[in-house]
């Protein structure tokens, strides 16, 4: 199972390192000084660790002692998190650039490595993303174990798996609530335009509302929906009348597609709230000893597995679309970052090919995932 997940992740992840050069060559030229070292650091520090020890983890169960096996698992864990750290450093630098200066040729030069690495959004971003991956795994473990327990398969193994899964599923979304809150405040402070788009805010106000769900009419510059009056201002600094900046602070050409950002952000937040509720419900069932017999709850667990992925995607859409039209916030426009020698036809060709290949991988992944789950823990 781990092998399948890892291999699909690794195979599709390598595309990214190529794409900076193939599709964003002008970006690469401008920021190679800063961005390159970060990616190289990810390769040297994280990937080697992760990829070597995952070999031990997947193939070495019977070949190494339990102690070594445990260390290998730990190193894959560390490697995975280091890898997440460096790629988040790269992305957060595009959101809130720091530690650089621009020379006469318009090239971005690194002046302070630690300022660039620990730029204003790195830590928040890292915690938010890593917790999201923890929720994803917790839900996956719960989904698989819930299926086994409901069907009466794999006895004690399945129950232990479910217990650990539910404990993680109860804790991680709560931790995420804190991390997400801190991240949102940081976005309001460092990327006010994105924050305004997330809530469809067109006028700077004291006492800004927060929407539960809604719709943004970009032409009329109005947002409709269910909202909590003054909620955003309150969450920002626990003052119902604090001032939140709006979209009209910047020219309209520097706006992101507001409704898309608004919707994806609200889908992500809504999913987060659902995870908190269901995780706590599971913990309560475990606490009262009803978990293993609560078939109605166990029945739904496998269907939750795709939801954290949806939250990941909508979260990244919020982050990346919300940064538009900038590729580096306030510094370089996306339109100036693309490769100049690559023709539209080539882009279309590669996009279609990647869509087909990824679709094929996705279908295969789901088929094999279900198959491996049905085979059960003994077989794999």
């Amino acid at each position, binding site marked *: 199972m781990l*092998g*399948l997940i*890892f*291999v*699909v992740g*690794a*195979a*599709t992840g*390598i*595309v990214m*390192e*190529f794409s*900076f*050069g*193939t*599709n964003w*060559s*002008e970006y*690469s*030229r401008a*920021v*190679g*000084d800063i*961005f*390159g*070292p970060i*990616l*190289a*650091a*990810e*390769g*040297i520090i994280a*990937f*080697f660790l992760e*990829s*070597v020890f*995952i*070999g*031990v983890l*997947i*193939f*070495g169960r019977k070949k190494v002692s339990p102690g070594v096996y445990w260390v290998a698992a730990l190193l894959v864990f560390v490697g995975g998190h280091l890898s997440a750290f460096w790629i988040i450093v790269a992305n957060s630098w595009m959101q809130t650039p720091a530690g650089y200066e621009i020379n006469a040729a318009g090239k971005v030069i690194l002046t302070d490595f630690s300022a660039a690495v620990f730029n204003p959004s790195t830590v928040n971003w890292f915690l938010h993303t890593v917790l999201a991956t923890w929720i994803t795994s917790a839900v996956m473990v719960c989904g698989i174990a819930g299926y086994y327990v409901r069907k009466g398969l794999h006895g004690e193994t399945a129950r232990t798996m479910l217990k650990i899964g539910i404990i993680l599923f109860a804790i991680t979304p709560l931790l995420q609530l804190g991390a997400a809150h801190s991240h949102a405040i940081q976005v309001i402070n460092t990327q006010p335009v994105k924050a305004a788009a997330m809530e469809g805010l067109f006028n700077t106000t004291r006492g800004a509302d927060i929407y539960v769900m809604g719709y943004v009419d970009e032409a009329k510059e109005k947002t409709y929906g269910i909202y909590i009056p003054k909620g955003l201002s309150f969450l920002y600094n626990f003052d119902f009348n604090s001032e939140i900046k709006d979209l009209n602070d910047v020219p309209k050409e520097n706006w992101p597609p507001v409704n898309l950002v608004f919707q994806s952000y609200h889908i992500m937040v809504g999913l987060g709230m659902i995870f908190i509720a269901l995780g706590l419900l599971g913990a309560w069932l475990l606490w009262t000893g009803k978990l293993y017999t609560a078939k109605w709850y166990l029945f739904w667990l496998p269907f939750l597995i795709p939801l954290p992925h949806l939250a990941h995607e909508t979260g990244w859409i919020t982050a990346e679309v919300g940064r538009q039209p900038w590729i580096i916030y306030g510094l370089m426009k996306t339109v100036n970052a693309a*490769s*100049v*020698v*690559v023709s539209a036809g*080539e882009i279309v*060709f*590669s996009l279609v*090919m990647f869509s087909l*290949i990824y679709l094929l*991988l996705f279908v*295969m992944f789901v*088929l*094999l995932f279900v*198959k*491996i789950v049905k085979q059960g823990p003994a077989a794999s």
Partner: protein
Amino acid sequence: MENIQNFQILWFILIFVLLLGYALLDGFDLGVAALLPFLGVKKEEKDTLIASIGPVWDGNEVWLITGGGALFAAFPHAYATAFSGFYLAMMLVLFALIFRAVSMEFRANDPVRASLWEKALVGGSALAALLFGVALGNVIYGVPLTGKMEYAGSFFTLLRPVPLLFGITGLAAILLQGASWAVMKTEGELQERSFKAVRILMWINAIVAVLYFAVLIVTFPRLSGNVLFYVAVAFTFAGLIGLFFRSAKKMTPPRFGSRLFRLSACFWPQARHSFPI
């Protein structure tokens, strides 16, 4: 040209080492996979061959990832120009790498379509093995650029005879690597077949190497005054001759050290040539 700093020299060497490490290590994986239909007849034999690279291919591929990252970090213009200029070729490399990666896992878990995934593994590995050499060949041989360092050729510019020869040289070397690896990792009938493959590939490599060095010296006359070039030629053929005797005596092919020399010898003149002084 006059302002080459120590760090640039260091990184030039470092990227050279990373790419060499990649060619050497992933060379085994790509080679074994590409030779799969020739070496393995029965399904169990193919399973054995794939199992021999299963735990290591990903760690080996990281050398390429890190090499790419290092190129991006140290020479962003070279990275940007080559990757955007060779767009379609790079996409082919990516497709090849994706299929070779997933097909091993898919083949193991999806017996119904196993033969299809096997073809994807063989095709992906062979294509990647060929394209790396072609890409390197183009960088060494030179490609048309505009004044703004943008690539000015087309996809077919990349397939000129000289870079193509680089690609074939690389493919031949990688296949030999794969066959030697198979000899080391197998026994019985499968090992016999691998020995046979080593012997055939040795001759192919010898012929290709003669062609390769001849083309190098004709294309880049300044190499003729370079000691390193002759050392590289000597190492290559010494390696091949050594392999010839060992395989004649049915000994397992030489271990890492000498292979490192032989393969790195193919790289030396290239690195020497692309270094700007």
